[in-house]
């Protein structure tokens, strides 16, 4: 069944005693896609991932991994996934290669294939130097990579990693990012992270969840447009800002000054302009603002980062929540 989505989640609900950790989540992930899972602490990211792996049962809703229902065939699903839990728990008193061998045997790799596969994975994750070391003595970066090596060991079609880059230094993050990118197209990957640029660079699609609900999903570019809904420009301009609105309206009717700074010694002040329109307005702006009585020193289009999107999306759902409370 190559045309079934790798992961399909419909109306997933998970309630612990009195708390609804995951509330009616729906999403699907195509094969070979890399999905980033974003959300503040306690949003339900880890819970959702645990349900996907079959480790936790869902309260209601259904999850299919490669077309196999998790609830009724957990054993079959476990053969399809490589999972690295939050905080990456590892046994303290085993050597790296022993650990990978043991895990490989549990994941039903034959003895003959396992040896070369372990070498390959150690090479991929840059672990060759520590293969005979005891895991308990490894630094955080190495431990994290052992966890990733373990997840990709059996070459499962779906890989689920809960915060794989937590506690790594920038160089190691780069290695992990390349590693995940190298899986693109071959394996479906879900990663959760707090490091937003990480997700932006690595993932094809982002899912933002807050308080158990999906608050936004799409490619990073889609999200910017959907959540922020406007583009902003930064200009440094000398001249009277009071006369600006008609000039701006001539360029684009919805263009407005949203913030303005104090003029510096040379009379330039920093202004923020924003518009609902998505099209590039740089050129007409440049033309109309550089004519007298204005002098223009710089103009740039601000690129909202995923961080802005994330904050806007999670704030939006908080607003909804607090207005709900007021109604009651």
């Amino acid at each position, binding site marked *: 069944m190559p045309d079934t989505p790798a992961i399909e989640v419909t109306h997933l609900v998970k309630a612990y005693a009195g708390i609804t950790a995951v509330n009616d989540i729906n999403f699907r992930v195509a094969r070979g896609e890399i999905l980033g899972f974003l959300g503040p602490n306690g949003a339900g990211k880890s819970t959702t991932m*645990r349900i996907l792996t079959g*480790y936790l049962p869902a309260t209601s809703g259904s999850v299919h991994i490669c077309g196999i229902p998790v609830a009724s065939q957990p054993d079959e699903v*476990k*053969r399809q996934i490589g999972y690295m*839990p939050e905080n990456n728990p590892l*046994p303290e008193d085993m050597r790296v290669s022993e650990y990978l061998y043991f895990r490989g045997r549990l*994941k039903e790799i034959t003895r003959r294939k396992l040896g070369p596969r372990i070498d390959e994975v150690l090479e991929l994750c840059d672990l060759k130097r520590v293969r005979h070391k005891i895991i308990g003595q490894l630094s955080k970066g190495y431990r994290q990579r052992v966890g990733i090596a373990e997840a990709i060991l059996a070459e499962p079609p779906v890989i689920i990693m809960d915060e794989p880059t937590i506690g790594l230094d920038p160089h190691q993050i780069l290695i992990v990012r390349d590693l995940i990118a190298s899986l693109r197209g071959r394996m479906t990957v879900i990663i959760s992270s707090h490091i937003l640029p990480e997700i932006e660079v690595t993932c094809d699609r982002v899912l933002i969840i807050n308080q158990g609900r999906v608050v936004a999903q799409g490619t990073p570019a889609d999200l910017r447009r959907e959540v922020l809904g406007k583009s902003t420009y930064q200009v440094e301009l000398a001249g009277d800002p009071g006369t600006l609105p008609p000039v701006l309206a001539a360029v684009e009717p919805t263009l407005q000054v949203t913030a303005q700074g104090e003029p510096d010694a040379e009379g330039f002040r920093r202004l923020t302009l924003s518009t609902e329109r998505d099209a590039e307005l740089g050129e007409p702006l440049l033309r109309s603002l550089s004519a007298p009585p204005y002098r223009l020193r710089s103009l740039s289009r601000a690129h909202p980062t995923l961080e802005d999107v994330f904050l806007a999306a999670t704030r939006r759902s908080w607003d909804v929540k607090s207005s709900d409370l007021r109604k009651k």
Partner: protein
Amino acid sequence: MKHFFTLLSHEIRMLLVSASTYIAAMLFLAFMGFVFTSILENYSKVAQEVSPAQTFFQFFWFPVLFMVPMLTMKCLAEERRLGTIETLLTTPVTTTEVVLAKYGAAYFLYLALWCSTGVFFYILSKFSGDTRFLDAGPLIGGYLFIAVSGLLFIALGVFASSLSRNQAVAAILCATMIFGLIFGLSWLAGSSALNREVLQPVRDAVDYAQVITHRDDFTRGIVDTRQLLFYLSGTVLAIIFSILSVEAKLLHS
């Protein structure tokens, strides 16, 4: 049961590299050696009615009380404390396989330790040159008792370990359960609280579950299937409860 042997060999290996195993083994052998030498001293002073093997197994409860908790306290508690149970159970293994493998490894080690005390008797027969000291009946019966009762004790230890994520709590719980099983029941059998007519069935049940009596029977060479059944059913029950406990903890985690 596909992964049982992978898990079992892993568990045995983990027990063999852990320091607490060697501490348990050393304390055990030191204590048993001490018991054995004092028995021999007594025998060399005064003629005794029973064979040394019978006296030797009378002290089985003491090593059981500290050795079983030390061997089993780690097995499930440590996995849950470190969170490795999550990685373990997201591979195609079942909870039953995991619990049975841990049980199997602890039982294997328990038997291995007791078997090493067999060397005491070998040395005795070798150097005394007298086969009377090596009375086969009580010896075989005694080791059989150890093997059979060990099934239940280790299962109780595994169960205690499944209840807590703290090893110390698991160890204390395990020691308490074994103590209750051996001495609590024998105290209950001797007390007058169960003398009333209505409590007769309870009294029968308590009389049936006397570990010390079982040991005496076994070392006398009597292998009673009712007693075997007592240990086997107790073991199965404790293992089922451990599996349920691990799974219940997942549901409510």
